[in-house]
């Protein structure tokens, strides 16, 4: 692409970084002095022998380079991104502080470095610090306005802050700058939020096609496409996508987790538990623990289900220690499982202040309802559905709120609506919806 051309002979050194970061930064926008010629060799050394899935080796190489040349900013920023990738691969939040240190040091050595700013924006998103992510994303965008990724950071943060109009404008700008997997996936997500899941399929399929059939991006997009089908009640189509992801990326945790939910919803609990256990052991994140707990619970193994509650507590502490704000996920878990409801409500309120997204509204509504504050809950439930999103779980929560307010026929209508949208929307709550819908 032309952006790579711009490197020309003199800036060959930058080429390595640009490739490494997949062109996170258009060199034309990189107003800083060209890196030392020798850093080309350094980067080359670092990349030699690197293969897909071998991020640990890349980390080791970059660390070795930095031991002898601690101020090599290309290697330093690359290391920051490599740690972010390790966090993605392992689910271990312990990589976040390391990524932050490398990226911050890059900025200290070269203030106004767009790439490091962008990296910190991504990091803030991963830690669910969305106001910070918005600030960083905007700064990175000002430094490198033609870099699509920076519009993605801004848009992602705005979605989580409930500012959808601005967010979707950012996504539209992003896809025009670079129509590719990252922007297609965001367009699809936006259409889904707008209650147009059918129209979300084509761009997500385009995202799959844009994965280059590299295992992880391919598997990620297949799982997203599967979840889209799942949200539309297309159980078989969803399972097909999950299995497709596993074919190309055996053991892919997010596909195992999704397939576990799918198997459990169809009553195949033995298989579901095996899949959910594999996922939770490989990557013990709140999402995986929730699936495992609910699968045990649905299969009647209540004691094993309750054991997972303790695991969740430990994970909450670990996430918090590494700067991740997981209040929303944890509040939802507690509310769903009837654990310490007043504390869960406080957490949901706290989470909502940080993250007034549609999901933030929904979890707060649900927490309020479970604490018998159904009037206030109704307000947030309406907010959570204000874009017309067709999310069965949000419909169900609304049904429970209406029920709590004594509006029986309203509530039955919402339960039916939830089940029509996706009869398997939740292992725990779909049976409740079926019972109350009658």
């Amino acid at each position: 692409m032309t952006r790579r051309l711009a490197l020309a002979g003199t800036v060959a050194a930058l080429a390595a970084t640009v490739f490494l970061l997949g062109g996170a930064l258009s060199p034309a926008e990189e107003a800083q002095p060209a890196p030392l010629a020798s850093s080309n060799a350094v980067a080359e050394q670092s990349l030699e022998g690197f293969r897909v899935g071998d991020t640990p080796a890349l980390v080791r190489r970059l660390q070795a380079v930095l031991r002898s040349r601690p101020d090599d900013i290309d290697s330093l920023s690359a290391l920051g991104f490599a740690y972010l990738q390790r966090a993605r691969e392992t689910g271990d939040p312990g990589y976040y502080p390391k990524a932050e240190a490398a990226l911050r040091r890059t900025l200290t050595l070269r203030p106004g470095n767009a790439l490091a700013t962008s990296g910190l924006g991504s990091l803030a998103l991963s830690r669910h610090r969305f106001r910070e992510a918005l600030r960083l994303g905007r700064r990175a965008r000002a430094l490198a306005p033609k870099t699509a990724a920076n519009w993605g950071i801004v848009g992602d943060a705005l979605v989580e802050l409930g500012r959808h109009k601005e967010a979707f404008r950012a996504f539209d700008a992003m896809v025009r700058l670079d129509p590719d997997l990252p922007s297609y996936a965001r367009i699809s997500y936006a259409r889904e939020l707008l209650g147009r899941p059918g129209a979300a399929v084509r761009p997500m399929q385009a995202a799959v096609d844009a994965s280059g059939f590299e295992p992880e991006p391919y598997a990620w997009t297949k799982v997203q496409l599967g979840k889209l089908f799942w949200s539309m009640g297309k159980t078989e189509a969803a399972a097909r996508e999950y299995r497709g992801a596993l074919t190309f990326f055996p053991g892919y945790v997010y596909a195992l987790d999704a397939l576990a939910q799918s198997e459990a919803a169809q009553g195949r609990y033995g298989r579901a538990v095996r899949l959910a256990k594999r996922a939770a052991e490989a990557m013990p994140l709140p999402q995986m623990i929730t699936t495992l707990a609910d699968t045990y619970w649905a299969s009647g193994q209540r004691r094993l289900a309750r054991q997972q509650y303790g695991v969740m507590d430990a994970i909450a502490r670990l996430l918090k220690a590494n700067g991740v704000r997981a209040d929303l996920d944890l509040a939802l878990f507690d509310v769903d499982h009837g654990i310490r409801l007043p504390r869960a409500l406080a957490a949901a309120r706290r989470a909502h202040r940080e993250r007034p997204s549609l999901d933030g509204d929904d979890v707060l509504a649900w927490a309020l309802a479970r604490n018998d504050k159904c009037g206030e809950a109704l307000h947030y439930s309406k907010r959570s559905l204000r874009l017309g999103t067709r999310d069965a779980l949000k419909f169900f929560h609304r049904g429970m709120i209406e029920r709590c307010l004594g509006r029986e026929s309203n509530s039955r209508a919402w339960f039916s609506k939830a089940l029509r949208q996706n009869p398997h929307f939740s292992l725990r709550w779909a049976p409740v919806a079926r019972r109350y819908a009658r």
Partner: protein
Amino acid sequence: MKRRLGLIALALAAVALAVAAAMIRGASPDSASAASHREAPLISYTPAEDLTDVFMFRSYEAGNQDTVVMLMNVNPFSEPSGAPNYYNFDPNATYTFNVDNNTDGLADIRFEVNFTTEIRGVVRALGLPFAYAALPPITALDGAGSEGLGLRQKYTVRMITQPGRGRPGGLLSGTQDRFAVPSNVGPRTMPNYPNLASQGIYQLGGNVRVFAGQRQDPFYIDLGGVFDTLNLARNPPLLSPAEDAAEKNAFGVDALSGFNVSTIALEVPASLLTGDGLGSAATAQPAIGMYASVSKFLAGVQGAGSGRGVGAFTQTNRMANPLVNELVIGTVDKDRWNSVTPDQDLQFAQYVLNPRLATAFELLGLPGTGCVPAVGVVNLLPGAQAAQCSKTNRIDLVNALLKYNPADAAPTGDFLRLNLKLPVTTPLASQNRLGVAAGDLGGFPNGRRPKDDVVDLAIRLVGGPAYFTARAGDGINVDDFQLPATFPFLATPSDGINRVHLDRRDPVFAPPPFLGGP
């Protein structure tokens, strides 16, 4: 062909791609459950949209000389050992040959090629983490013998004509499956690759033939040397008369040796292209212009392309004459140049009129640059020299690159131009790498054949008369592979275990014998 420069860090290309893919596109998947957000990967690289070269010439295959062959190459620097996924076309892109048949600088006929990808076969059944596998060996593109093709691409070819032109048009590829020829993995997986590839040549409606798949990169250049401001293996980089005439390399190495590309090739009857619908002998409108473009699927949330249907497409890449975007267009305008149609090229005229490359030559102490005089052939060459042509007002280059005829009042934009009335030079062995400049009217800039040495020609055209006289060049006169004389006219690609990348430290490589062939 932005690639030439970007991939200066040759050795890095393959590993860097892997890094980019693994590390950055590597997803950061979050759940779609109520309490999380979905953080898609942020960064991308799309070599399958990166045009490296475009060719157009009358076929020099016996019996087919009344057809026009058009080729476009993508996937720069395909390292043959680039397992496990190798090289594919982009299913989100439309690949288009745009043909102007009335010299107005607007496309009258377009051939659009679209791909879809399927994951299939034994690979899927066994759950192998590879796109291709050797179980069993791959001997066919479909049916028995194709089971090992774990990732396969199909495509359609559509001809689109201006309304009212009475052309067949429509879907040329019909209802049958047309398969792209996969990358040459190696002799165990693909024991007879030439045979496999030949199955990928299809006869379509309108007597059009098509091939899509991997080929050896026919471009030959001392890439690093040229882009290190002509830091070539000989200083100054001038060839002796004997060296200039020989079909072997004088100095340096072909930096693209051992690399492959992905090719889309069309062979189209001349009568399907001309404005009057007549063949090359009879037509009264023999001048054909062509550029290749790649457009990308574009979906939006609220604006254009927000509908449910196919959505919009946006042009991300185009190419006609070789090296224009690389050597002529300024860095700040390269993306914009890629995104517009040739009729918008007037805005870039200043880059052509005052080429920076010529300035660079003079800074190096090479001979003084100047205007190329009229060669006196056809309407496709720098024409009668306007008096005001000068170093900073290179009207000759505008005439050569942007006009059908120097007499045209305004440039029509960057097209590869072919005069169908000019004779085809056949056999292949009699073609001269310097084309029209050496009296071979069948070659560049009358269209472009795989054999044409556009690097030396670009140096000489930009440098001017003194560079022709002194025979300036990069020393690489011939590709590392022998070209075939039959459709699709590009050689069998190197396989994953027998490829050879030549290096300046190697003894001067002077084929024949070639490293490979058809």
